[in-house]
C-alpha cells in the first residue's frame, strides 16, 4: 500500500457573495510510496499551494480524500488535525517560519514540547540531528542572529525531530541564494537516502531535479509526471525543463 494516496481531490473557492466560483483543484490523483522524494511543479496559480495546504491539513478539500498511512485526515476535526499534523508531518516553508521569540534550540523543540515530551528525551534527540545538519554550534542563538541558509536548516531540523512519516516542503529554496540552495537540496537527498519520504512543492527546476519523481500540475489537475530513473541531476534537469517548455507552449507531451 502507498504511504500517501490522493484521490479525486477537489477544491472550489467561492467569492464572498457566492456569485463566482474558482476551481483551484479540479481532480487531483496521485500516490507517494514510502521513501520517495517527490516534487510537484506548476506555475503560479496552478493550485500547488492549495494542494500543499490540504496535504498539510491546514485547509479542507471540497471533495475527494487524502489518505496518509491508512488514515483519511482531510476529514479530521480541527483539534485532531493539529495533533495529527504534529505527529505525522514535518514542514519546511519558504519563509522558514521560525518564531523569533525562541532560540534556535527552542524552535526545534517546539513540536516536541507541544507533544508533551520531557526535556531529557528532547535533548537526547536534538544533538545527533543538529550535528548532521551542521547547526550544532548555533543552537543557543536567536533567529535574528543567523543566516537564511542556517534558518532553513533549523527548519529542516524542526521538521525531522518528530520522525514524521512525510516531510512537506513548500518552495524550500525560494528564499535562498544559489549556494544555500545547493546545500539544502543536497541535504534533502541525504535525508531521503536514510528512508525519509519527502514531498516538495516548487517551481524551481533545479530544486525539482534533485527529486526522484516530478509531478506537473496545471489548471487544477496532475497533468504529467516523469521519473528520474537512472539519469544524473543534470540530465534530469534537462528533462524537466524540456517538459515544462512543452507544457507551457500548450502542446501534448
Amino acid at each position: 500500500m502507498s504511504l500517501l494516496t490522493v484521490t479525486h481531490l477537489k477544491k472550489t473557492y467561492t467569492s464572498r457573495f457566492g456569485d463566482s466560483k474558482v476551481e483551484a483543484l479540479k481532480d487531483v490523483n496521485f500516490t507517494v510510496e514510502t521513501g520517495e522524494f517527490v516534487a510537484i511543479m506548476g506555475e503560479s496559480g496552478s493550485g500547488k499551494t492549495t494542494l500543499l495546504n490540504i496535504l498539510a491539513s491546514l485547509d479542507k478539500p471540497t471533495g475527494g480524500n487524502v489518505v496518509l498511512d491508512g488514515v483519511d485526515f482531510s476529514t479530521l476535526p480541527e483539534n485532531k488535525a493539529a495533533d495529527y499534523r504534529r505527529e505525522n508531518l514535518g514542514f519546511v516553508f519558504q519563509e522558514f517560519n521560525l518564531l523569533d521569540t525562541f532560540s534556535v534550540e527552542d524552535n526545534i523543540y517546539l513540536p516536541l514540547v507541544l507533544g508533551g515530551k520531557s526535556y531529557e528525551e528532547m535533548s537526547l534527540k536534538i544533538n545527533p540531528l543538529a550535528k548532521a545538519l551542521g547547526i550544532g554550534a548555533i543552537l543557543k542563538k536567536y533567529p535574528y542572529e543567523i543566516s537564511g541558509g542556517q534558518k532553513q536548516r533549523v527548519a529542516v531540523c524542526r521538521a525531522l525531530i518528530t520522525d514524521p512519516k512525510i516531510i512537506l516542503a513548500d518552495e524550500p529554496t525560494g528564499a535562498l541564494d544559489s549556494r544555500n540552495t545547493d546545500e539544502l537540496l543536497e541535504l534533502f537527498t541525504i535525508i531521503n537516502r536514510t528512508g525519509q519520504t519527502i514531498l516538495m512543492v516548487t517551481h524551481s527546476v533545479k530544486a525539482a531535479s534533485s527529486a526522484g519523481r516530478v509531478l506537473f500540475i496545471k489548471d487544477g489537475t496532475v497533468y504529467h509526471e516523469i521519473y528520474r530513473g537512472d539519469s544524473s541531476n543534470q540530465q534530469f534537469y534537462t528533462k524537466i525543463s524540456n517538459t515544462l517548455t512543452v507544457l507551457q507552449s500548450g502542446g501534448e507531451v
Partner: protein
Amino acid sequence: MGSLYLRFAVGGIHKNRKLCYPYILTGVGMVSIFYVLNYLINCEPVMELRGSGVLTATLSFGVFVMAAFSLVFLSYTSSFLTKRRLKEYGLYNVLGMDKWGIAKISFWESVILGFASVTLGLVFGIAISKLCEVEIMNIIREDIDYTLRFYSGPFFLTLTVYGTIYILLLLKALFQVSRKNPLDMMKSESEGEKPPKGNRLIALLGFVLPAVSYYMAATIKNPVDALSTFVIAVIMVIAATYCLFTVGSVTLCKWLQKRKKYYYKKNHFISVSSMTFRMKRNGAGLASICILSTMVLVTMAGTISMYASIRDLIGPYDSSIEVRFDNLDEVLGGAGDSIKENYYGIFKEYGLKPKEETEYVHVYTNLVQRDDCFIRENAQYEDYRAVRFISAADYSRLTGEKIYLNPGEALVTQPSNEYPYSTVTIMGFTFSIPGNPPKYEEIGMNNSGTDSHITVILSNLDELQSIDGLMGENCEYCWTYSCNFDGDDDTVIAAHYDQYDALTAYFGERGYSSSGYSSREQIKDAYVVFGGLLFLGVMLSLVFLSSAVLILYYKHLTEGYEDKERISIMEKVGMTKTLVRKNVNSQILTVFLAPLIVAGIHLIFASPLIWKLLQLTDIYNFHLFIKSEIFTFALFSVCYIIAYKLTAETYLKIVGE
C-alpha cells in the same frame, strides 16, 4: 503640487484611522478640559464665591498639570503614530518621492491632526463649559444661574498652549522623518528582534525601591513631613514601576526559562518565551498605564474622602465664641455674662433668636505624658499633649451624658482609644478614675480630634488650684458660648462677625485673646475648597484614565499585528487553533491586568501617606477614608476592565482575520 501632498496626507490619515481617530479624540479631550478649567477660573459666578481664591488656585494648578501632561502624553502617542507611518513614507521614498515631499506629507498630516484636535477640542470645550460650571456649582453647593457665557481669554490661552504643543509635535515628526533613510523606514517595523536582556541589578531595584518607599510611607509620623516624603516616594515609585515592568518582568521570564523542567511544558513554553518579548516591547507602556492608574486612584481616593468628610470638619454651632482669660477666678466668676448681654443685643438687631445655647468653661494646657503621669517639662513639639480640664457638670450638659464625680476623682477621654490606666496624675497630684471613661466626644472647637488631645473631667475646676505649679500663664482659662439660629446663612454669618469683631476689639484692649466660628460659614468654605478639589480630581482623573485607555488601545493594536504572524506559524507547526487562542488570550490578560494589580498595591501602600496628608486638612475619619479608597478602586477596576474588553476586541479582530 501642494494639493497632492495634502491629498496624500488626508489619505494616510484615513487609512490609519484606527490609530489617528483615537489620537484626535484624546487631543480633543485634553483641549476641551484645558479650556473648561480656564473658563471656570474666569467665570463670574465662580469668581464671586466666598473663598474663590482657593478655588482658582486649585483650578490653576489643574491647568498647569493639564498643559504639562498634554505635552508629555501627546508627544509619546504622536511618536508612536509617526513610527507606524514610516514604512509607508519609506515606500514613497523608494518609489521616487524625495525627502522634501515626504516632509510635506508629514507636515500636512501633523497640521491636520493638530488642527482637528484643537478646533474640535475648543468647540467641545465651549459646548460643555456651561455643563461643567453647573456641575462644579452643584458640587460646592452654590446656586446655579443659567446664563451662557463665553470668555475670549481662556479661548486664546487654550489656542496658544495647544497650538504650541502641536507645533512642537510637528517639528518632532519632521525631525524623525529627516533622520531616517528609505530602507530604514521600510524596515522599521519588521526588524529582526533581539531577545531582551534581563538585568538583575535593575530588576532588584524594581523590588527594592518600592519596598523602601512603601516603608517610608508606612512609618511616617508627622503629617507635616508627609508632603515632602510624598514627593520623594512618588518619584521612587515611578522609577521602580518602570524598572519592574521593563527589566524586572524580563528577568523573571529569563529565570523561568532556565528552569528546564518548568519551561519545557506545553503550557509554559510558549507563554514564557513570548511574554519575554511582549514585556520588552510593552514594559514602558504598561508602566505608564500603571502610573496613570495609580494617579487616578490616589487623586480620586484623596478628593472623595475629603469631600465626604466635610461634615466632620464643621463645628456643631451656627455661632460659637471662645474667650481666653488669664485666671481661673475671673472666668468662674461669671465674666461671660456681660459678653452674652452684648451678644444678645447684636442678635436682636439682626432679628435672630438664639436657641440650643450652651456655655462652659475649660482649662487648657500642654503637658508631657509618661504613662498615667502628666508633667510639665521641656520636650519636642510632638511629645506634648493638649490637655483640657472640664467640670463634670459642664461635660454632662454638653454631651448629654450624666456624670457624677467626687472630689479627687477624674475621667479621661481621648479620640483614638480608651485611656488605659486606673489613675491620672497631674504634676504629682493623683486623681482616681472611678469607672469606665465615656466615649470621646468633641467639645468646643472643631479641631480637637487629633491624637494629641486629651480631656480630663473633674468634679470641679477649683481642684486645679491646689496642684502646685500647674496654674499660671502656662494655662488658658477659656469661656465658650455657642448657639444656633433659624435665620438664613448670610444674616447668621453677618451677625456672627459683628459680634465677633466687637468682642475682639473689647478683649484685645484687655490683652485677652478670643476666637470663634460659624458652622454656616465653615460649611460654605469647606464646600468651595474640597468641592473644587473633587471637581479637579474628577477632571484630571478623566484625562489620566482616557490616556491610559489610549495606551491600552495602541498596545492591543500593535500586539495584534505582531502576533498575527506568530499565531499562523504556531498553527502550522501543530498547535490547535483553540490552544493558540487560549494561550495568547491568557498572556494578553496577564499583561494588561498587571498594571491594575500593581496600581492597587501602590494605592494600598500609599494609604498611610495619603492619610497623613489628609490629617493636614483636619480629616480624621479613617473608616470613611478606607471606604473612599475601596469605592475608588472598585469603580476604577470596572472602567479599566470595560476599556480592556473594548480594546481587546481590536486585537482579536486583527489576529482573527
